[in-house]
């Protein structure tokens, strides 16, 4: 499934925007998370949890899902492929892992926001800092993988490469 050069650039642009946007939104979430965990002012804590819930539901989750889907389309539409290079596979696994954890965590954040609004002492609510810090680390790793593209062909990628160089020997098996 090779994309035309024009369409490939469009897909790549959307992929970069959604992926880097996801990282930026998680950094914003981290700032709110630190505020919620450290502020002594109950109203500030409530506001921070409320903003965190909105950010997760309306920005981070849509960007994450879009990043996964567009990333797969981008990989399949170029000669990088989805399973030919180790860095693409590692990136895909990390992205899917981060998205699954995010989808689970989004329920928690929604619950915390409602609890903070209802509680006279919202500062006693448990923090989601380990997840937000972990999320930033994983997304930075994914970004670095995309930039450095460490070499390494999978067996499948190697077979495809050999086939492209000399299709005859592999046609029979």
């Amino acid at each position, binding site marked *: 499934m090779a994309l035309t050069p024009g369409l490939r650039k469009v897909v790549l642009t959307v992929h970069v925007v959604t992926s880097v946007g996801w990282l930026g939104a998680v950094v914003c979430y981290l700032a709110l998370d630190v505020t919620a965990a450290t502020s002594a002012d109950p109203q500030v804590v409530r506001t921070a949890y409320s903003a965190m819930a909105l950010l997760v539901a309306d920005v981070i989750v849509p960007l994450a899902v879009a990043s996964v889907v567009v990333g797969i389309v981008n990989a399949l539409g170029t000669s990088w492929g989805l399973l030919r290079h180790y860095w693409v596979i590692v990136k895909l696994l990390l992205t899917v892992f981060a998205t699954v954890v995010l989808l689970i965590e989004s329920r928690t954040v929604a*619950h915390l926001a409602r609890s903070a609004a209802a509680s006279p002492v919202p500062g006693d609510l448990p923090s989601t800092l380990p997840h937000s810090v972990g999320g930033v680390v994983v997304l930075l790793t994914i970004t670095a993988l*995309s930039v450095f593209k460490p070499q*390494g062909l999978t067996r499948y990628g190697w077979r495809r490469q050999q086939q492209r160089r000399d299709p005859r020997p592999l046609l029979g098996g």
Partner: protein
Amino acid sequence: MGDDSRSSGGTGSARPGASKAPGAPRWVRVCAVVAGAVLVLLLVLKLAGVGGEHGPGRHMGVGDARSSAVVQDAGPADSVRVDSLWR
């Protein structure tokens, strides 16, 4: 993913004309070992009970006296969508 101009130029460790598929490069093996070690560490911490319960229940008053005291008035997490509450 970016520019795919390198993808056909042999980014893999296979030598041109090699008859045998290359093994996983060192960085992949190192990452696999590190990921495995982190997984084992998390499993050990969970089994040892360090850090309490993990997962959404930790924040929802299940098994955490501190959070349950705070969130006891709130309903189930999935009963109300957050955007309907905060707009």
